[in-house]
């Protein structure tokens, strides 16, 4: 029974000290501690939200970048294609032009060659004729130096002429 009979003295000290400790702790400990804890929680939450927002912004920005890049790539493709086409056209044009020029050159060359050849042939004909005349003159002088030779020749010519006639 003594165990469950509260002694007045201890009861007094208990009420006094517990009352004081509740009051002092509430005022000087719990208020600042809970205040800064909740402040910290708020700031963490804010920081998290901010980070989330930034992440979203970043995602948005990188999506924009992607779009830009895609555009740029497409543009590049188009430009490249155009350049290729232009180049091909140029080459083709150049080729045709060169071919035509070459043809023309060739034609001219052929003309020249033909002219030269004709000229050469004419000259050769002339020279051959001259030479033949000279040779004939020499041979005639040689062959027809004597009376006999002249007779022989006449005979022969006659013979040939006969042959030709027959």
């Amino acid at each position, binding site marked *: 029974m003594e165990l469950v009979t509260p*002694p007045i*003295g201890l009861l007094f*000290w*208990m009420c006094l000290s517990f009352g004081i*400790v509740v009051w*002092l702790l509430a005022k000087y400990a719990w*208020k600042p501690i809970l205040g800064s804890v909740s402040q910290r929680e708020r700031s963490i939450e804010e920081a998290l939200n901010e980070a989330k927002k930034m992440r979203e912004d970043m995602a948005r920005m990188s999506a924009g970048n992607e779009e830009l890049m895609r555009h740029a790539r497409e543009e590049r493709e188009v430009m490249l294609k155009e350049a290729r086409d232009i180049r091909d056209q140029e080459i083709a044009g150049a080729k045709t032009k060169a071919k035509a020029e070459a043809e023309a050159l060739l034609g001219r060359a052929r003309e020249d060659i033909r002219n030269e050849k004709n000229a050469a042939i004419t000259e050769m004909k002339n020279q051959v004729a001259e030479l033949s005349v000279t040779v004939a003159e020499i041979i005639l002088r040689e062959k027809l130096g004597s009376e006999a030779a002249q007779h022989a020749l006449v005979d022969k010519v006659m013979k040939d002429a006969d042959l030709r006639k027959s």
Partner: protein
Amino acid sequence: MSLKALLPNTLLLLGTLLSGAALAQEGSHADPDTLVVQPHGAAAGHEVAEHTSSAHTPEKFNAGKLIMEHIGDAHSWHLWGHTSLPLPVILWTDKGVEFFSSGKLMDEHHRPVAYQGAHYTYLLEHEKIHAVHVDGTVNEAAQVTDLSLTKNAVTLIAACALLLVVFVGMARGYAQRSISAPKGLAKFLEPIILFVRDDIAKSAIGEKHYQRFLPYLLTLFFFIWSLNLIGLIPIFPFGANVTGNIVTPLVLATITFLIVTFVANKHYWRHIFAMPGIPVPVLVILTPIEIMGHFIRPIVLMVRLFANIMAGHIVLLVFFCLIFIFSKNGESLIGGYATSPFALAFTIFINCLELLVGALQAYVFTLLTSIYIGTAVAGGHDDHHH
């Protein structure tokens, strides 16, 4: 678990072993020749004679007496053997206040002696101070209220001071570091504070009202917990069984009762006096039960804490006393030595268990207080109980 958290545990175990040494001295010393009848008259003489008669026959080791002394309060702090620390005695008498050392109420052998104060003559008998006549009979006319700073009162005040130092210091640290992460002791205590806030107060009382009661609940939790732990450390300056004394749970449960009674809203009272949706004949039975419940709940709260902590101390001491019981008060050394390892192992085991119980009871008391407050302030709409 960090090393820091293990430290108190290790200290406790060490303390258990040391207290074993202290108790062993106490248990084995049985000097039958030191007690002499004092010339203080009949009552004192009677008291001392009782001592003497029991002391002259070789004093039997009385485990029950030892345990009751250890879990009870005392006017002086027993350290070891015949050494004890006298504590201040404060008496509120009808003639004025008396203030003297408790050492004046006993001689060097711890026998009670009468002390002539300024107003009356006092005698300490079974840890109760009476005003006595010169012949030793109790002075019935004198009104003496004992407000002494007993072992429990000193521990109580010291624990309060400790709480103040720790938490005000912690608050100062928070003020300095602003919102950066807690450091040192705060790193260990902040999760507990948050636990009390989120898992006890917020969940039991509700988002809307919990903030009003949080400072009290936090103080309550740390007060009970620290005193439970202090009670488990068996060496000076710890070991006083404050939470296992009826006063502490009584005061705390009374505060809970008062808070619930004063903050209760009309929904609470309506549920007590006229539970909605219940037919009148049933109400005749139900309402008295509900009214009783309003009073019984804090009483149960009180008994739970008181009984748990007291029982823990008793079990601890019982296991410890096994050594002296089996050694037959020093006659059978073999018995003592053979029992010691087991008794010590069990004591250490129970001490660890009590470490858990100490935290658990602090939690349960705070939680139930929160729940009672929660039912008292819950509105009709967000009331989950019906």
